[in-house]
């Protein structure tokens, strides 16, 4: 029996480990997506893809001596093989068993990284899988794909004219069928070797899969072809059988009167590795185009890209320094004979600036990844939640090709999953309710991603019951978040914003009343901390749509640079609403607190440096006010002066200073000193906690 925490040894070095983990993660992802699709539509291609993924995992785990993983994948493979051959139907029982095994596979694959026994129990999973096989078998054993050796040469029908011409010139027409061993690690390349051999033997008239698929190394385990050649069939057969890992080769001459079989169904090549999830609105060509481009692309280690990004960050900082030096030099040299030198420097600095911008932009682009990997995880989540809550839900995703920065991909998943769960759990009605409302029993949740300017947008839209505005109003008043009058007077748009208020949606029963779940305030805070935003639209009985907006990258941000007590702070521009001089501002003292009246709103006034924990005495009277907002609430920040806008490279404070409330990170300034990046959400939150009454000053 496994001993948890025990050290495990595997037969692989660090480089292999990386490849192993990458590949394992990839194949597990494929399984995760494809297994869920299985219930809905178990076409041959899908089954083949799933089988291959399990097969690859089995092969690589066996190669490194991970017996437990190899044994579990073997059991999965047996079930998948039965599915592939139609001896077993993909019932939800079967899919459940496979998904459970997949969850265990994840843990087992991770053992290779940690080299510690996770203690996970796989025996019962294997038994469960094998039990499925025992119950199978009664159904007709229909030859699955990959077993049709030598059967139908219909794919060659289109080449009939060529075949006749070759025959006329005295060549014999050979039907070739080659199968690669099931356990061959790179069957696609073996298929290519088969093609090479056929090309050497004569003229290849037609192949299945099509030639370009084989040449791309993307064929499966079987190649069939029609070849015009002068050599005897037995000789070609021997040559083919001599290729490593060929399980069987069949070559026979096709007689003149022999039909080739039915014409191939449409000449379109089968999708090789179809897109991850069922997608709506995705232009079919985009996916295949990107696959074709795959041959000309390389994998780059993420760490290297991060390194490049850091280097460019340094360049950006140096550029800012150079500009300062140039200004100083120009001032000193103004009017002297060396003034020309300063001009020279100015031109060079400007050029360097442009190049740095372009370089930064180019590297930013290389860090971009399609959102596909995030969206691919969603079907599984929807299935799980729907099963648990007794809903019928179809997930539609679109915009898989939308690109965003790695750093954003890492943080987008949690809020997205949160909202998606809520949509299924609370948005979509039970099949019965839906029937009564005259809707189809199966609800639809649509997740769409798109780019617009420097942002990525993700919409999660359901066709469920919509939000209950009256319930939200009542709950907000009951929780003391708004006054009864304010709630009654608030237009629907504003009422919708209540669902993001802390305290409203944390109560469990609210989800039953309002139809929406837990902790949306936290989702909003997390998104806004990343300089993004979230909005919601809802119509009673029709459904709800959440739209998340995030910047394309988190590596740099636009900020307003200000000085407070001699220290430079960067306030992210997304949170800044306006700046104004202190002189002439309408500041009142109410109950010992200072409030700024700005148009219709009352903003709590904070001295920025003091609010961030700077205990030193002020050197000068603050001369400017920066109004900053978060979650619809504003604060007025007093600063000494405003320096201007700037792109800053965000560095984590990390071990340097440790976490400090109100500070979200640091950036190196033009003069080499550290500038602190202000975390507006926590400043606004703090101000709100300090003065409950200012909540009334909420600005919609």
């Amino acid at each position, binding site marked *: 029996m496994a001993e948890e925490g025990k050290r495990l040894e595997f*037969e*692989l*070095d660090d*480089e*292999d480990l990386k*490849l*192993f983990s*990458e*590949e394992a993660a990839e194949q597990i992802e494929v399984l995760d997506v494809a297994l869920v699709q299985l219930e809905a539509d178990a076409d041959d291609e899908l089954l083949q893809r799933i089988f291959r993924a399990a097969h690859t995992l089995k092969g*690589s785990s066996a*190669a*490194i001596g991970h017996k437990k993983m190899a044994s579990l994948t073997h059991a999965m493979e047996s079930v998948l093989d039965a599915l592939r051959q139609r001896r077993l139907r993909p019932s939800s029982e079967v899919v459940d068993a496979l998904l459970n095994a997949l969850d265990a596979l994840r843990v087992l694959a991770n053992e290779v990284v940690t080299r510690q026994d996770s203690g996970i129990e796989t025996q019962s999973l294997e038994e469960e899988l094998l039990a499925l096989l025992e119950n199978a078998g009664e159904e007709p054993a229909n030859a699955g794909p990959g077993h049709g050796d030598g059967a139908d040469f219909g794919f060659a029908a289109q080449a009939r004219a060529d075949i006749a011409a070759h025959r006329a010139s005295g060549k014999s027409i050979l039907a070739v069928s080659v199968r690669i061993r099931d356990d061959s*690690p*790179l069957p*696609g*390349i073996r298929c*290519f*070797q088969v093609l*090479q051999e056929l090309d050497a033997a004569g003229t290849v008239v037609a192949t299945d899969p099509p030639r370009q698929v084989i040449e*791309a*190394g993307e064929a499966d385990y079987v190649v069939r072809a029609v070849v015009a050649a002068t050599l005897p069939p037995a000789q070609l057969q021997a040559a083919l059988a*001599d290729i*490593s890992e060929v399980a069987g080769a069949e070559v026979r001459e096709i007689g003149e009167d022999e039909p080739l079989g039915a014409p191939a169904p449409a000449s379109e090549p089968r999708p090789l590795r179809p897109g991850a999830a069922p997608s709506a609105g995705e232009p079919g060509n985009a996916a295949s185009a990107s696959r074709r481009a795959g*041959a000309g692309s390389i994998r780059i280690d993420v760490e290297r890209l991060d390194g490049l990004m850091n280097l460019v960050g340094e360049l950006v900082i140096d550029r800012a320094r150079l500009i300062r030096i140039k200004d100083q030099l120009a001032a000193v040299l103004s009017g002297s004979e060396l003034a020309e030198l300063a001009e020279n420097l100015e031109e060079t600095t400007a050029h360097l600036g442009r190049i740095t911008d372009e370089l930064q932009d180019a590297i930013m682009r290389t860090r971009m990844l399609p959102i596909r990997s995030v969206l691919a995880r969603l079907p599984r989540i929807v299935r799980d939640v729907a099963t648990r809550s007794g809903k019928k839900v179809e997930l539609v995703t679109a915009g898989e090709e939308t690109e965003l920065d790695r750093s954003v991909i890492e943080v987008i998943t949690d809020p997205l999953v949160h909202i998606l769960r809520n949509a299924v759990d609370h948005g979509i009605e039970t099949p019965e309710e839906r029937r009564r409302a005259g809707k189809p029993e199966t609800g639809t949740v649509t997740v769409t991603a798109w780019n617009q300017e420097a942002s990525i947008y993700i919409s999660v839209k359901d066709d469920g019951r919509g939000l209950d505005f009256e319930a939200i109003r009542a709950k907000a008043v009951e929780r003391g978040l708004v006054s009864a009058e304010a709630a009654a007077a608030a237009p629907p748009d504003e009422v919708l914003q209540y669902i993001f208020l802390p305290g409203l949606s944390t109560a469990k029963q609210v989800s039953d009343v309002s139809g929406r779940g837990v902790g949306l305030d936290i989702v909003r805070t997390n998104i806004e901390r990343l300089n993004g935003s979230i909005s919601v639209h809802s119509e009673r009985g029709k459904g709800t749509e959440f739209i998340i907006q995030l910047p394309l990258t988190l590596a740099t941000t636009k900020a307003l640079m200000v000085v407070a007590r001699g220290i430079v702070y960067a306030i992210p521009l997304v949170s800044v609403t306006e700046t104004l001089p202190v002189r002439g501002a309408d500041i009142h003292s109410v109950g010992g607190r200072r409030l700024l009246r700005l148009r219709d709103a009352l903003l709590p006034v904070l001295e920025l440096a003091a609010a961030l924990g700077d205990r030193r005495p002020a050197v000068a009277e603050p001369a400017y006010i920066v109004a900053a907002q978060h979650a619809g609430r504003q604060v007025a920040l007093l600063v000494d002066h405003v320096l201007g806008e700037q792109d800053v490279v965000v560095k984590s404070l990390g071990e340097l200073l440790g976490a400090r409330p109100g500070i979200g990170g640091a950036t190196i300034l033009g003069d080499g000193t550290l500038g602190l990046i202000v975390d507006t959400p926590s400043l606004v939150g703090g101000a709100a906690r300090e003065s409950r009454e200012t909540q009334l000053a909420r600005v919609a």
Partner: protein
Amino acid sequence: MPKVLIVDDAAFMRMRTSKLLMEAGYEVIQAENGLEAIQKYREARPDAVLLDITMPEMDGLTALKEIKAIDANAKVAMLTALGQQQIVLEAVKAGAKDFLVKPADAERVLAAVAKLCGR
């Protein structure tokens, strides 16, 4: 006795494969990288080459092309790790006769070498 040139920067893999082939009656020559492989190929004209893909100095694919330039009939099998499919495909297009995915079991290594040597 057929001569086999084993090219791999990983000393352990090189030794393991050498031992296997010597026990099976082959004469074995070793090289640590692509440059050394080309030099040894010129000198010894081996009957078969097992050529690792990822190596310092000169990678396997470049070495393969150089060896094929010296001897168009050179019989080369690539040694590849998981996930190098595109490079392997390129190598086969560039004239590699066969390939072995590491870690390959003894049976596969011996079968591939026997085929390369025409045994």
